[in-house]
Every structure is written in C-alpha cells, then in structure tokens.
C-alpha cells in the first residue's frame, strides 16, 4: 500500500500542492488523472522520491520514502519519468540490465541476466535487444524504458505518462502490457494518464487530481460519469456507453 499523509509541496507563491491524503491499495493498476498542472506528476515523482516534500509523509509498503535509504527503496519501488533523453548510446539489453543495479550493483549474475531476458521478452523486445536505443522508434524506446523498471523487480511501479507521444496502437499495446504487469507479475502499477478513456478502460482505480488536491478516488464505474468528469476537468463531459465500456466524450 502507498500512503500519502498531509503531503505538501510549495512552488513559488500561489502554486502549491496539498495537503494530500491518499491511500493506494496493493495490486492492480491505479491511474492518476486530472487537468494540466493539477499536480499528478508532482505527486508521482514525490512518491518515487525523485522530488522532496515540504511537509507530510509518504510511505510505500511501510517504508517512509524520505527516510529509507535510496538503495533499499530501489528494491521496493521503481519510477519512470516522462522525459527520458539519454545521450549515452546503450543497447536495449544494456539499458534493461541497469534495472538490476539495486540488486547487483553492476556485476550481473546469471540470475540477473535471466531477469533481464524475461523483462525484455515480456515487452516483446526480444528481436531488438542488441539494437541501440537511438535506432528504435518512440514506441519501442518507451517499451525499453518500461522493461528497465520491470527488471528492477519492485513490488511498486510508478510511471509518469507512459503513453506520451505514442500513437493509438502503441498506447493500447502499452496499456495491455501494464495490465499484464499487474495481473501476471502481481505488481502494483501507478500511472499518470492524460486520456481519461484509457484510464476508464484499463485501470482498476482512478484517482482524480485537481488544483493540487485529490478530488475523487474510486473505481472506473464511479469516476466515469459525466457529472464527476465535468467537475474534475472543468469542461462539459458526457459519458456514453461504448461497445467496450463507458466512453467520455468531451469534444
């Protein structure tokens, strides 16, 4: 379980986040949604200890992220930011292997290599593992990054807008991968999503963030209503029954 209690982050003057109190249960896919600048990514990055808090406590499976040594935390939670631009030329396999760093400190054992191979296969990167990252398409590269955090074998996986810059096919594919991560590998996936319909279809829980506060938390059925979404996104939203579940129409 991830618990945020009284979490605050202050930016220059007016912009502030929190205080946020939130409990994300173990297992499944939890989607963070909300308007631009609501603080979704900030909450996720703070949970992944990439950003410090100004007040409050965040605990992941009982570990206080501010106090637990970073290298111990790296075996509990992995976090992937939205922008990943590497100047280093690494192959897919070399990159994914760095996910084993918390366990191996760089010297890979045969067991580590096997975990790496599994993560690569899990994201269908088998044929690409010796290609350099700069030779891949955006969708393939994104999958390689996800494979890296998977090979870290952490119970909790936090992803900041993994669908950014992906087309329809690759977005749907990525979400199916994340569902499998939650179901087959029994990890807890927390993901910031931009498109509410992806959240409605693939997530088990949706957390709506607005103006630096959590305004809604519930199952897709509870959140995917015209009334709730209109309030969260401050734009008229109608929810219709699509062939595969509710669809938010906002244009």
């Amino acid at each position, binding site marked *: 379980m991830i618990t945020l209690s009284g979490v605050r982050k202050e930016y220059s003057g007016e912009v502030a986040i929190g205080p946020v109190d939130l409990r994300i249960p173990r297992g499944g896919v939890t989607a963070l949604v909300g308007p631009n600048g609501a603080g979704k990514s900030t909450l996720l990055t703070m949970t992944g200890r990439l950003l410090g808090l100004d007040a409050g406590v965040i605990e992941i499976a009982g570990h206080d992220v501010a106090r637990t040594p*970073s290298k111990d935390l790296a075996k509990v939670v992995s976090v992937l930011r939205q922008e990943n631009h590497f100047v280093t030329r690494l192959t897919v396999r070399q990159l994914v292997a760095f996910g084993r760093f918390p366990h191996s400190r760089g010297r890979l054992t045969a067991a580590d290599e096997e975990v790496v191979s599994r993560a690569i296969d899990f994201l269908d990167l088998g044929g690409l593992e010796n290609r350099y990252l700069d030779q891949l398409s955006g969708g393939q590269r994104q999958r390689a990054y996800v494979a890296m955090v998977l090979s870290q074998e952490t119970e909790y996986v936090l992803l900041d807008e993994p669908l950014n810059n992906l087309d329809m096919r690759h977005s749907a594919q990525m979400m199916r991968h994340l569902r499998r991560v939650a179901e087959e590998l029994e990890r807890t996936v927390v993901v910031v999503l931009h498109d509410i319909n992806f959240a409605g279809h693939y997530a088990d829980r949706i957390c709506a963030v607005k103006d630096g506060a959590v305004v809604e938390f519930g199952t897709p059925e509870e959140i995917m209503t015209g009334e709730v979404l209109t309030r969260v996104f401050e734009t008229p939203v109608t929810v219709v029954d699509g062939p595969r579940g509710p669809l938010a129409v906002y244009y």
Partner: protein
Amino acid sequence: MTTETPVPQARRGGRLLDGKLLVGTAVVGALVVLSLFTGVYDVFGADDGGEMFAITRVPRTVALVLAGAAMAMSGLVMQLLTQNRFVEPTTTGTTEWAGLGLLTVMVLVPGASIGARMLGAVLAAFVGTMVFFLFLRRVTLRSSLVVPIIGIMLGAVVSAVSTFVALQTDMLQNLGVWFAGSFTSVLRGQYELLWIVALAAVAVFVAADRFTVAGLGEEVATNVGLDYGRVVLLGTGLIAVATGVVTVVVGNLPFLGLIVPNVVSMFRGDDLRGNLPWVCLLGVGTVTVCDLIGRVVIMPFEVPVSLILGVVGAAVFVLLLLRQRRHG
C-alpha cells in the same frame, strides 16, 4: 547457444580481452616502442646511450601513456556526468583552473615542491569543475552546444586571471611554457608523481557502472538507488586529480578527452566498463602519435604536442559537430 532458452549470456564479463582489443594493444604497444627509440640522441651508439635512454626516453614514454590514458578517461567521465558529448577538461575550464592553482602556489610559495604545486592544481581543478557542474544543474541547458561554449568562456576568464597574475608577478614566461603542453621536459626525477593518475584510472574502472548509471541522468540514477550527488563528487574528484597532475607535469593537452571517447562511442556504444580499455588505448595512441609528429616535423627541434593535438582535435571536433547536425 546450446541451451534451449535463446538467452544471450552475460555479454559483459569476459569481454575485456577479445581479439580486437589485443590487436589494438599491439598497435599502441608498437607506437610506444617507436616513441622510445625516436630522438636526436643516439641511444645505441653513444657511450652514455643507455643512461640517456633511462633519463629521458623512458620517462617521456611512460608520461605519454599515463597522460594519454588519464585525459581520455577524464573526458569520458565528464561527458557522462554532464550528459553532454562536447565536454572535457579543456572545454569546461578544468585545465585553466588547474593552471591557476599551479600559479597561485608558485606565487605564494616560491620554490614549492612539485607535490605542493600538484596539490594546488588538483584543488583548483576540483573547485572549478564543481562550479561548472553546479552552474549546469542550475540552468539545465538543453542545447548541447551551449555547454562547451560556456565552459570555454569560463576557461578563458580563468586563464585571463592567470595571465594577469603572471604579469604582475613576472611569471608570464613560466605560464607560457606551461600552457603549451609538451613532453620535452619530462625527465627522470620529475615525472614520477604522474603515476598518481594510474590510481585514478583504476578508481574509474572500479566505479565504471556507477558512472554509466549517472550518465542516464539524476532521476534514473536515483530510481535504481544510486546516490547521484556522491557519484558526481567522486567523478569530479578523479577528473581533478587526473587533470591537475597531468597539467603540472605535462601541461595542457587540448581536445584529447573530447575526441577519444566520442570515437569509441561511435563504434562501440557507451557501455563504460567495456569501453574503458579502448578509451585508454586510443588516448595513449593519439597522444603518442601526436608527440611523435611533434618530435620529427622540425627535427632536431620539437613542436609542443599541444599544438599538434589542437590541430587534430579541432578538425575532429568540427567533424563531430557536422555529424551531430546530420543526426538531428
């Protein structure tokens, strides 16, 4: 593959001694031997040939090997820590800071030992590099070209300060001699401290994976549980030691740390542990070739190696820029 799982086995271990590397080592080894026997003095014919060989040729060649490897590796580590392909000790002001440190010690303590001068150079190089890194962290420049430009500007300012101090204290000539990096004056009894950089090289080997992870950025590094700040500090320390010591013994070796890691990365990608032997070899090879050219073009006189390196390095730098532009 004899196992049924199509898993490429550990491709990281056991790769240090592959065939290509042996060939490369042999080529560089031949260059080193050539360097030992190049010079005006007839080390075979003259009575004191053997003695002269030990006094000048051996120290000079050892210095070539150590300085070449150290500067190439410093460039590589710096490029990883800044995530920028165009930085190295001479494009970030590190060398100029080392020079200022050296000068300061010479002014404050006339007749200071070579060890004291080195200490001054290393400390100043460390401070200067940290200033540069802190600046980069503050402004997060996205354009990779602005970074070396700022570094070169910073270096110019520092070297202007050095020139001013030297003018005031009548040391300009020393400064000029020092700025033109050259292996001419490397003699027995004066270069031995250069072995310190071998220790720095070993440390880089040990921490190779950390530097590669840090090269993926602070966030990825933190994610896998690496203390990014400490790695930066360690890297800066090693760069400062290598640059400071080389600066005091040999002088300024421009562009070496820039060309070598980029060429290696082009051919082999950026897996640091596997690349380090190549970076060392190519660094040694490049500096040895440049020194040999410098020694023979106007025989029996010599051209400083920094001059040759500057010409070669500038050409390669421009090529790299063009290549980068083409690749977007």
